[in-house]
Structures are given as structure tokens and as C-alpha cells.
């Protein structure tokens, strides 16, 4: 085998390394922040998320101080309400989800044997969006303007301007901005895992972490868009008085609850699965053997991923829905416990069949498991409707969710920090301080949260800023407060251990735990990721493939060089990881930061209703994104093929389903389609709850919607025609694009004409508001589609899109498939359904 590998003299190797280092170099000074390298972005992301966690933890301590004794007046009701709202919001949106995007961006390339994820600039854009949005949301509490209606933001409390003030807008807009970043990260992760694995890493050899992240990213794609749709409805109500949740005008507060929890429950598993993924990397290492039950883990991850979407109503057991509906959700909620149990038993089985070395990561892992099992068992309890009727919205649920999230997420993350610290610094954290932190956190956690089970069952509701003496809650609460501070001391110990200066170890040891997975070949001193991209033949290549590390470091595998001066990585096939493309990814750039700041500006200006500023920022965002696309995507390479080493020549430019860009578009549009489906769900939701859902308001008629439908289908056809013509020469394609653009504009006008000409007033009733929102959604997408048509036209004229290099038009055609479905559904529903139902 070794003879087939590359062989370079030391001088050649040094020259290769010099070139690689130059290409992947991280700049110094202010330019450092233009880096898009996954190690920097991952690190910044992680540190930021961790900082937000500490902030939210401080808020929790403030709440525990207030609740230490009955009838306390340490803080006001209003500050308490802001604190608990922000605590939940920050922990969920700014810590739990982003920390995994951070870990994934950081670890995945090395784990998969890729130089980089396929869209590094998108990662950078996601990070900057997250940072800006996060600071905006957290900062609000210092101006006494934080959201105060709970992290679940139930209307009508949260739509009440007088009560919620600007806080609710900060929540809605700040978080929508971050949700966009999360979806961007999900696209990046899915494409990265499916297409950027090292050659030979078939799906049965993928690291467990990658399996989990693939599922989690897929879940984000289906879970976040309903919330974005909900945010849009909510913000329309707050800004323009469209009555989606106002019962007096036909709206219904429950629609928000549905949309929120369709997001909210999968969210729990989006948080939990990656933590289990870390455990699945740690347990085999310290059991000194491959994981037992690899397929079972896949079962658990995929099964949880699906079932988690059938649980949302268990947050609504007390809303008065029919018992049979509740029971269906109860059934799914019980079923999801099975894959969760499988995961736990996989770890136990792996330990049983191995020789366990006890270490700090294992301590946190096992401690987390012990806590999590309690959370899982109480989860089984609250998933039963009769019990939940009692336990819902009490401290029992507070205890349950913290047992699940801290045991199932925080402890594994800390285990991961101890485990992976040498991976990104080359140094280990202290064993001694690790144990101190563990025992403080473990005991503090249980002292704080175990009593809450009982205060809850004794009738203590959640989200109370005070409670009377003598109901039977006093001692439990005092205990919880004491425990919370012990827990905080543990977290502080961890932070100090991370921050304290550490000596560099005497000898260089890249794999201090003797792990078996590929990421441990990574040298934290170098920013190129893999020195050369290896051929993988095992799940634990460092255990099973002798000389792997040496061969990688000596550049004997693929892509040992960077002669072109571009950042290159391999793209492989989905199932068997056969190399199919040499992908060039984006390098350093200001454009991502500018785009993120401008988009942040749009959201922030909207919050304060500064309309002109909003438009200004929107224009800057638009320009930044166009520049980004124009300069950074689908450049025509200097040669069709490149030698990637070992005698293999691969294309540099591919288009259609073979390309990562096509997949990114596809995945993004699946998410977008989910948001659209949520809006359609809203339309029919109002139909089910009202005798006459049109409330006798005249609808958009059938004529204009049908016209719009037909025009959109024609525009779609013309766009596809442009794609076909493009293969034969530019002229036909350009004409088809111009025609498609014209028809798109006509279709959009027709789409808006229906509700407009019939004088539908969206503030009068929920029916016109729903029709308008669907029409606007579709026309907004048509506007994006039209810009894409013009973009292709411009690319064609600029010679950047040719018959051979046609990625742009093929991705745009893919967009238009989704566009056509959206238009047909929208105008079919708003035009024809009122007639059908009448």
C-alpha cells in the first residue's frame, strides 16, 4: 500500500509546507478578524457562546437570590421577569445551539479529514450575525428594556405593547437574526458531512459525532423555520397591528404556541444530541475500544430526530385541546424515550466490553449520565397527560428540564472541553481542578434542582418572583439557592482552570488520550487542518491504520501542496466517499463582516422603527451579498482539472447535483419551504377554528390569484428554458432570462392585485391578514428569484457563466422549482380554497 503513496524529499516537503502555510495563514493585527478559517471561527463562536452562558448563569443566580426566602424584595417583579425571560432565551438561543455550531465548525473538518468546511465565509457570516444579535438581545437588560414575557413569548401578553414594551421586538428581531445564522450553520454542516469526508470514509466508517451532527443539522432545518414564520406573524402584529393572535379579530393565541413548540421541542433534542455525540467520541477513547452498537447509535440519532417532531403539543397539554390529540402526542413522547435509552445503553455496553480508564472527561460524562437519567425518567412522567396536568408549569418541570439539559448537555460539553482542550491548545487542563469543578458542579446541581421536584408537586408554579411563607416551599427554595451557588462555584473553577496560564508540555504529543479518531492528527500550531488528506479504511483510523499520522504529516496522501495559491479541499461521494472534486473555498474577507453588520443593522433599526435607516442597511446588505456572490462563488478555474496527488486528477468546477453549491441551495430551500408550510398551516388552522373563516370579508377572488399562478408557472418554465439554452450558447439563455424576469414581475403584480383590488384590510380581521402574508411571502420570494435571473444575465454578459461553467443558472433553476411550488400552493389556496370550503 505504502508504495502507492506519494514520496517527497525533505526539501520538497518543506517547500510544500511553506506554500500551504501561506495559503491557510491566519492574518495578524486587525486583519485577524477577517479570518474565515474553521479553527478561528469555531473558537470565536465557542468563546462567545460560553460567555453568553456565564451571563445567563448570573441571571439565574440573581433569581435564586430573590427566591431564597419567601416574600423577598431584593429585586422587583419586573426585573425578575426580565431575568427569567433572558435566562431561558440566552441559554437556548445563544448558548446551547451555538456552542454546537461552534464545536461542529471547529472539529468537523479534522474529524472528517477535510481541510475546511465547504462554505467558510458562510460560517464567518453566521458567527458575526450571532455576535451582533446576541449582544443586542443581552444588552437590553442594562437599559431595563429586556424582553419580559418569558422565553416562549406567549401572546397576548407578549403582544401587549404596554407590558412588553420594546423587549418583545428585541426578542423577535434579535433572535430571528440569530436563527438565520443557525440555519446557515446547518447548511454548512450537512453539506460538509455529506460531501467533504476523506476518501474511503464510507458512511459506515463516519465518526459518531458526524452522524449526530448530520441529524441535528437536518433537525435545525425543519425546526427553526416554523419559529421564523411565527416571528414574522408576531412582528406583523406588533408593528402593523395585523391580528394573527388577537382573538377579538379572529386570531388565536394558540397558533403561536403551535409554531413556537414545533420549533421548541425539537430544539431540546437539537441541544441534546450533539452533547451525546461528544460522549460517543469520549467513551470509546476511555474504554480503549471501538463503540459497541454503532448502528444502534444511528438508530437512536435518526429515530430521535424524527420522533422529536411529534412531541410539540406536550407543552400544550393544559390548553384544552381534545384529549385524543393530547394522547397522540403523549404516545410519541413516550416512544422517544426508547432511542434515548438505547443511547445510554450503548455507552454502558461500550464500557462493559472495554477497559475503562477513569479521567476528568469520563467523570463529567458519567456524572452527566447519572443526572440525565433522572431527567429522562421525569420526562417519561410529564409526557403522561394526567400527570402533566398537575406538573405542567410548576417547579417540577423546572427540575425536569434542568436535569435533562444540564445532565444531557452541559456536563457532556464540559467533558468535551476537558477532552478536546489539548486538541486546540496542545495542553491539558488540570486533573485536580477538573475534579474539584466536577464535585462542586455535581453536588451543587443536585442540591439546587432536586428539591424543585418537590416544591413543584407541592404546588409552586414557575415564573413567580415571590411566594408566600408557609405553603411548604420555604426550605426547598433556600436549599435550591444554596445549591445554585455551589454549582456556580464549580463553573467558576472550570473557567479559572481554562484561563490560568499553562506550561507548554515538554514533548509534543498530539494525541494525549490515545484516541482513535482522525481529528487527533491535527496540529494546533498549523492552520491548514490536514497536512495531506488521508485515505481512511477504519472507524478508528489512528488505532487501526499504522503509520497514518506519519504519512499524513509527510504529505504522502492527497492535496499535499497548494501550488495554485488557493484554499483547496476534497469533495467525495455521499455513500462511499470516492473523490469527485477538488473544491476551492473562500479565503479571508471583509465582505462577510460587512454583510453581517449591515444585516444586523436592518434588524436593529427595525426594532426601533427607524425606517430610513432600515432601508439604508438593507441596501448595504444587498450590495455586500451581491459582491460576495459575484467575487466569491463559482469562479471559472484556470484549468478544468487539477492533480490532487497520488496520480488522481479531479475537476475543479462542477455544477448541478454534484456541486456543493447546488446542495446548499437545495437544503436552504427545504428550510425555506418548511417556513412556508408553517404559514399555510396557519391559514388552515384559522379555517378549523372558525365557523366561517373568512369572517364574511371579501377574499382576493379567483381571477388574480389564478393569473399569478399561471404567470409564475410560465416564469418557472422560462427559467428552466434559460438553463437548457445556456448549454447551446449564451444568446438564447439571455433572451429566456429577460423573458422570465418580465413574466416574474407581471406575476408578482398579479399576485398582489387580488387582495389589493378587493380592498382586503389586513388589520380588520385575521383572514385578510393571512391572505396578505401568503401573497407577500410569495412575492418576496419572486423578488429574490427575479434578482437571481438578473444575476445570471449579468454573469453571462461578464463571461462568468458559460455553457460549460453553468453553476449559477443551475442553482437558480433549482430555486425556481421551489418558487414554483410556493406560488402554486399560495395562489391555489388563497384563490380557490374559499370557494371549495363554501
Amino acid at each position, binding site marked *: 500500500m505504502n508504495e502507492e503513496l506519494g514520496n517527497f524529499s525533505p526539501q520538497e516537503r518543506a517547500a510544500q509546507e511553506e506554500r500551504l502555510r501561506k495559503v491557510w495563514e491566519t492574518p495578524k493585527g486587525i486583519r485577524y478578524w477577517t479570518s474565515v478559517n474553521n479553527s478561528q471561527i469555531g473558537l470565536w463562536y465557542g468563546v462567545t457562546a460560553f460567555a453568553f452562558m456565564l451571563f445567563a448563569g448570573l441571571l439565574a443566580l440573581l433569581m435564586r437570590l430573590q427566591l431564597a426566602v419567601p416574600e423577598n424584595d431584593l429585586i422587583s417583579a419586573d426585573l425578575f421577569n426580565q431575568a427569567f425571560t433572558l435566562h431561558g432565551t440566552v441559554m437556548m438561543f445563544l448558548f446551547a445551539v451555538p456552542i454546537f455550531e461552534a464545536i461542529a465548525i471547529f472539529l468537523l473538518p479534522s474529524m472528517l479529514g477535510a481541510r475546511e468546511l465547504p462554505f467558510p465565509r458562510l460560517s464567518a457570516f453566521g458567527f458575526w450575525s450571532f455576535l451582533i444579535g446576541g449582544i443586542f438581545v443581552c444588552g437590553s437588560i442594562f437599559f431595563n428594556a429586556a424582553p419580559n414575557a418569558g422565553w416562549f413569548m406567549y401572546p397576548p401578553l407578549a403582544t401587549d405593547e404596554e407590558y412588553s414594551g420594546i423587549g418583545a421586538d428585541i426578542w423577535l428581531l434579535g433572535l430571528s437574526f440569530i436563527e438565520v445564522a443557525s440555519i446557515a450553520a446547518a447548511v454548512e454542516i450537512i453539506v460538509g458531512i*455529506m460531501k467533504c469526508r476523506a476518501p*474511503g470514509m*464510507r*458512511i*459506515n*466508517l463516519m465518526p459518531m459525532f458526524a452522524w449526530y451532527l448530520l441529524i441535528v443539522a437536518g433537525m435545525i432545518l425543519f425546526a427553526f423555520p416554523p419559529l421564523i414564520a411565527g416571528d414574522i406573524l408576531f412582528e406583523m402584529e406588533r408593528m402593523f397591528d395585523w391580528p394573527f393572535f388577537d382573538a377579538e379579530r379572529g386570531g388565536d393565541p394558540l397558533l403561536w404556541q403551535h409554531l413556537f413548540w414545533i420549533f421548541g421541542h425539537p430544539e431540546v433534542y437539537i441541544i441534546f444530541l450533539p452533547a451525546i455525540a461528544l460522549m460517543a467520541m469520549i467513551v470509546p477513547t476511555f474504554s480503549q475500544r*471501538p463503540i*459497541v*452498537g*454503532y*448502528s*444502534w447509535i*444511528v*438508530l437512536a440519532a*435518526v*429515530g430521535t*430526530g*424524527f*420522533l422529536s*417532531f*411529534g412531541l410539540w403539543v406536550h407543552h400544550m397539554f393544559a390548553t*384544552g*385541546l*381534545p*384529549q*385524543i*390529540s393530547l*394522547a*397522540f*402526542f*403523549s*404516545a*410519541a413522547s*413516550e*416512544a422517544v424515550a*426508547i*432511542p434515548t435509552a438505547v443511547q445510554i445503553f450503548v455507552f454502558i455496553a461500550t464500557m462493559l466490553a472495554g477497559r475503562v480508564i477513569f479521567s476528568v472527561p469520563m467523570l463529567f460524562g458519567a456524572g452527566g449520565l447519572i443526572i440525565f437519567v433522572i431527567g429522562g425518567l421525569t420526562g417519561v412522567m410529564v409526557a403522561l397527560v394526567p400527570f402533566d396536568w398537575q406538573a405542567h408549569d410548576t417547579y417540577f418541570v423546572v427540575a425536569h428540564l434542568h436535569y435533562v439539559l444540564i445532565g444531557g448537555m452541559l456536563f457532556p460539553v464540559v467533558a468535551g472541553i476537558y477532552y478536546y482542550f489539548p486538541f486546540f491548545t496542545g495542553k491539558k487542563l488540570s486533573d485536580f481542578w477538573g475534579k474539584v469543578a466536577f464535585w462542586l458542579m455535581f453536588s451543587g446541581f443536585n442540591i439546587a434542582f432536586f428539591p424543585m421536584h418537590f416544591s413543584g408537586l407541592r404546588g409552586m408554579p414557575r415564573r413567580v418572583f415571590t411566594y408566600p411563607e408557609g405553603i411548604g416551599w420555604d426550605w426547598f427554595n433556600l436549599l435550591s439557592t444554596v445549591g445554585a451557588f455551589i454549582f456556580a462555584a464549580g463553573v467558576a473553577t472550570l473557567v479559572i482552570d481554562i484561563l490560568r496560564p499553562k506550561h507548554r508540555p515538554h514533548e509534543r504529543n498530539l494525541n494525549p488520550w490515545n484516541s482513535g479518531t482522525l481529528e487527533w492528527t491535527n496540529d494546533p500550531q498549523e492552520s491548514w487542518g490536514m497536512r495531506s488528506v488521508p485515505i*481512511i*479504511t*477504519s*472507524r478508528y483510523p489512528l488505532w487501526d491504520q499504522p503509520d497514518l499520522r506519519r504519512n499524513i504529516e509527510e504529505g504522502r496522501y492527497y492535496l499535499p501542496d497548494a501550488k495554485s495559491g488557493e484554499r483547496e479541499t476534497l469533495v467525495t461521494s*455521499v*455513500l*462511499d466517499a470516492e473523490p469527485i472534486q477538488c473544491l476551492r473555498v473562500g479565503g479571508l474577507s471583509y465582505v462577510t463582516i460587512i454583510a453581517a453588520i449591515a444585516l444586523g443593522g436592518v434588524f436593529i433599526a427595525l426594532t426601533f422603527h427607524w425606517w430610513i435607516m432600515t432601508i439604508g442597511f438593507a441596501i448595504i446588505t444587498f450590495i455586500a451579498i451581491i459582491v460576495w456572490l459575484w467575487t466569491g462563488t463559482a469562479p471559472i478555474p484556470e484549468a478544468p482539472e487539477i492533480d490532487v496527488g497520488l496520480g488522481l486528477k479531479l475537476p475543479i468546477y462542477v455544477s448541478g447535483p454534484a456541486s456543493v453549491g447546488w446542495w446548499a441551495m437545495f437544503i436552504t430551500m427545504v428550510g425555506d419551504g418548511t417556513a412556508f408550510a408553517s404559514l399555510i398551516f396557519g391559514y388552515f388552522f384559522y379555517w*378549523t*377554528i372558525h365557523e366561517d373563516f373568512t369572517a364574511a370579508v371579501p377574499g382576493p377572488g379567483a381571477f388574480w390569484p389564478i393569473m399569478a399562478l399561471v404567470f409564475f408557472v410560465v416564469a418557472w418554465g422560462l427559467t428552466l428554458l434559460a438553463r437548457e439554452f445556456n448549454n447551446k450558447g449564451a444568446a438564447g439563455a439571455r433572451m429566456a432570462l429577460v423573458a422570465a424576469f418580465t413574466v416574474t414581475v407581471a406575476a408578482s403584480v398579479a399576485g398582489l392585485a387580488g387582495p389589493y383590488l378587493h380592498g382586503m384590510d389586513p388589520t380588520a380581521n385575521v383572514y385578510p391578514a393571512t391572505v396578505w402574508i401568503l401573497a407577500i411571502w410569495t412575492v418576496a420570494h419572486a423578488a429574490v428569484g427575479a434578482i437571481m435571473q438578473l444575476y445570471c444575465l449579468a454573469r453571462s454578459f461578464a463571461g462568468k457563466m458559460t455553457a460549460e461553467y453553468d453553476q449559477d443558472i443551475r442553482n437558480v433553476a433549482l430555486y425556481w422549482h421551489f418558487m414554483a411550488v410556493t406560488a402554486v400552493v399560495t395562489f391555489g389556496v388563497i384563490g380557490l380554497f374559499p370557494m371549495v370550503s363554501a
Partner: protein
Amino acid sequence: MKSVIPREVESLWTLFTAPTVWALHFIVCYATVAIFCARGLASDISFDTIRLALAIFTLLALAIIVLSAYLAWRQWGFGSGDPPHDAPTRKDRRYFQGFATLLLSGLSFVAVAYMAIPLMFIAECQP
């Protein structure tokens, strides 16, 4: 019979067949009772009829899952090899896919069967 059973497919998507059946079954059950209970469509249909229809639908879903399990079993070589299926070969990759799909079919079967319990015990649209 041979023509009814699909040929082996080389795709990652087959992994998701059984859970997708669960999801569709779940949506249909939920949407049916939600619409029936909220709107009482066609008042001559009783809730018991709805329950019966959904029960039959449940059996259908279970049958599809069993079929998917059979296909997975076939992909797994009818259990001819034990896990872990970690060799760097196309065969082991397929065996792995087959085994994982089989396990997922099992879980989906249980999850769909659980949905029958509410149909059994709850006879009214009551809140």
C-alpha cells in the same frame, strides 16, 4: 410477487423510509381528529367511525413498515453477518445501512403501534 418488491436502491434516503411512514401516519391521525373535533365535518360521521378508519390506517402503516423492514433485512444480507460492519468495503457499508434501517423500522413500528393506544381508549372529542 417479485415485481412488487422494489429493487435494491443505492441511496442514503432508504434509511428514512420507516420513520417517514411514522411521520405521515402521525400527521394524518392528528390532522384528522383535530379537524373532526374542531369542525365536526359531515355530522353524520361518528367519532367511532373516525377511530375505526384511523385504526385501519394504522394497520396499513404498520404493514408498510414491515415491508421496509423486509427490504432492510435483505440489504443486511438476511442477517448473514454480525455487526459492527466496519470493514472499508461496499458490502459492509450496505450491511451497515441494512442493519440500521432494520433497527429504525423496529422503532417506527413501536412508535406507530403506540398511536393505537389513544384510539383504543378515547372515545370522545372531549377536552
